[in-house]
């Protein structure tokens, strides 16, 4: 039980209830934080734990919190990113479904540390049932005095609200999320200013992924050194890896940061389904450039995947088998980004639909010589030329697919 940070809650009956959580020494860390520790102590611990963001970019949480200006007369906000829109990702749903109180305890500690009295959990609209579970957990926690005014007699006030999105992948991008929370279209903002200084309602704001926040109580419980030892010295803890595609046991697996990708697929997820052979792996959600089978002997941490010119992203591993057509994979990728571009930046708004149309034509058997080069040229014209990282998130996987599977893609072209 102890070596699992959070997955021991998964699929247990009643794990989402306050009674269950209290039985697991739940809210003890929040009590400790509010009654015995100062915000500075807490910040130092989170920094020392080298907890990197679990939402995609892998930024150290403690460093981000440290950017929030102290004092000031403006309110500060926490936005918990539960948008979970990156294709292949489903881990946060497990946390919120089975351990909503762990998330709430993390929110209490985080808010106390940064001096925040209002937190919003921005959850994707499709997760309506999960949102209801969170609401119930919030009600339970409030009734027990863990939320609301003067929590546990500490003088600290905190309100937590669930805010449902309405179907837009871009709203997982942190500044689009802020716009969306303010009741607008999800158009990302130009940075700087960073949300830590000017965020929600023009106030200092911390944005963290669900899994990032759910790790906070653990750091307090066991200490930063223990946390680093669970993972890597510069990238502490465990991560929830989602495995999908034609493997024997698709699912969410909690493994140390730095675990082997090959083991994840072939040991934990049971390997390929009978009769299927491995063709490629997308290691960190659809935005992560694809790896060939000879590239998957790699450790699952931000640095080593970056070295392999891919990324760990949201830890969502999509396994692709030999029966899959790479043209079809490319079509789905192009379709997705074309659909999800918010339309603000011309390269992304125009480039992605252009790529989609070209790939669609190729899929209809009307591909022409030069199509692949043109797709790459357009992708390169999106790369680095947009306000938010969605442009890169579209261009990089398309560039990797058209490079690594060029030969196969070319077979669909006529002379």
């Amino acid at each position, binding site marked *: 039980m102890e070596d699992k940070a959070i997955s021991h809650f998964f699929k247990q009956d009643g794990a989402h209830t306050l009674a269950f959580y209290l039985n697991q020494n739940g809210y003890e860390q929040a009590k400790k934080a509010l009654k015995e520790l100062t915000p500075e102590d807490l910040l130092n611990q989170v920094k020392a734990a080298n907890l990197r963001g679990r939402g995609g970019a892998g930024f150290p949480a403690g460093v981000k919190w440290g950017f929030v200006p102290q004092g000031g007369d403006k309110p500060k906000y926490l936005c918990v990113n539960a948008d979970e829109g990156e*294709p292949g990702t489903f881990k946060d749903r497990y946390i919120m479904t089975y351990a909503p109180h762990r998330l709430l305890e993390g929110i209490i500690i985080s808010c106390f540390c940064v001096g925040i009295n209002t937190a919003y959990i921005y959850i994707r609209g499709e997760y309506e049932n999960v949102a209801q579970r969170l609401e119930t957990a919030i009600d339970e926690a409030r009734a027990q005095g863990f939320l609301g005014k003067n929590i546990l007699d500490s003088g600290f006030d905190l309100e937590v609200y669930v805010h449902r999105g309405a179907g837009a992948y871009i709203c997982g991008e942190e500044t689009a999320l802020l716009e969306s929370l303010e009741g*607008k279209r999800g158009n990302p903002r130009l940075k700087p200013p960073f949300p830590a200084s000017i965020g929600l309602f023009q106030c200092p704001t911390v944005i963290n992924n669900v899994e990032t926040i759910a790790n906070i109580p653990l750091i307090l419980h066991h200490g930063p050194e223990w946390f680093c030892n669970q993972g890597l010295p510069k990238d502490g803890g465990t991560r929830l890896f989602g495995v999908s595609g034609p493997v024997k046991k698709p699912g969410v697996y909690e493994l140390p940061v730095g675990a082997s990708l090959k083991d994840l697929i072939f040991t934990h997820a049971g390997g390929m389904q009978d009769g299927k052979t491995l063709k490629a792996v997308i290691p960190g959600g659809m935005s992560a450039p694809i790896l060939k089978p000879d590239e998957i002997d790699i450790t699952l941490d931000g640095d080593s995947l970056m070295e392999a010119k891919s990324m760990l992203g949201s830890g969502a591993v999509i396994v692709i088998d030999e029966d899959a057509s790479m043209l079809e994979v490319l079509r789905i990728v192009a379709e997705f980004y074309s659909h999800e571009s918010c339309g603000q930046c011309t390269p992304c708004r125009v480039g992605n639909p252009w790529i989609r149309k070209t790939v669609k034509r190729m899929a209809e058997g009307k591909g022409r010589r030069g199509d692949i080069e043109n797709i790459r040229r357009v992708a390169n014209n999106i790369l680095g030329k947009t306000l938010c990282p969605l442009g890169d998130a579209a261009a990089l996987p398309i560039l990797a697919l058209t490079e690594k599977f060029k030969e196969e893609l070319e077979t669909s072209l006529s002379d």
Partner: protein
Amino acid sequence: MSPEFSEQTKKAIAEIVARYPKKEAALLPVLHAAQREFGYISRATEKSVAGLLEISPAKVHEVVTFYTMYNRQPVGRYHVQICSNLSCSLLGAGSLIDHLSEKLGIQPGETTPDQKFTFSLVQCLGACEQAPCMMVNFEYFGNLDTPKIDEILDNLE
């Protein structure tokens, strides 16, 4: 004519608005509440919501058209939304989409003449471990195959 919200929805909306320092921030949740009540967001509903939150109807329209979950036309009693993204496609979503089209006699984006079903293709639903998956209203169904889809749909009133 502007649609009238029920007393219950009005109360829910007041509670939602109180969660934010600015009324306008309640727009997404208020639209969800409106859709729950009326089934879709008409131009008239956009106007009432705008009045309620003291913003321009154009602002509301901008938002309604940006997010895919707001229906701008009435939908059937059951909205079947099947994932057409990668993990589901790798496990056969394509043929299930064809099957649904044939079974319901409509193309994606359409509603059956008896208003029972609307059928849509959606991007990743965040349930890839149960691929292929779909959502019927807000209920998720995973590990789908043709017989399972038949069973689910045939059991709906």
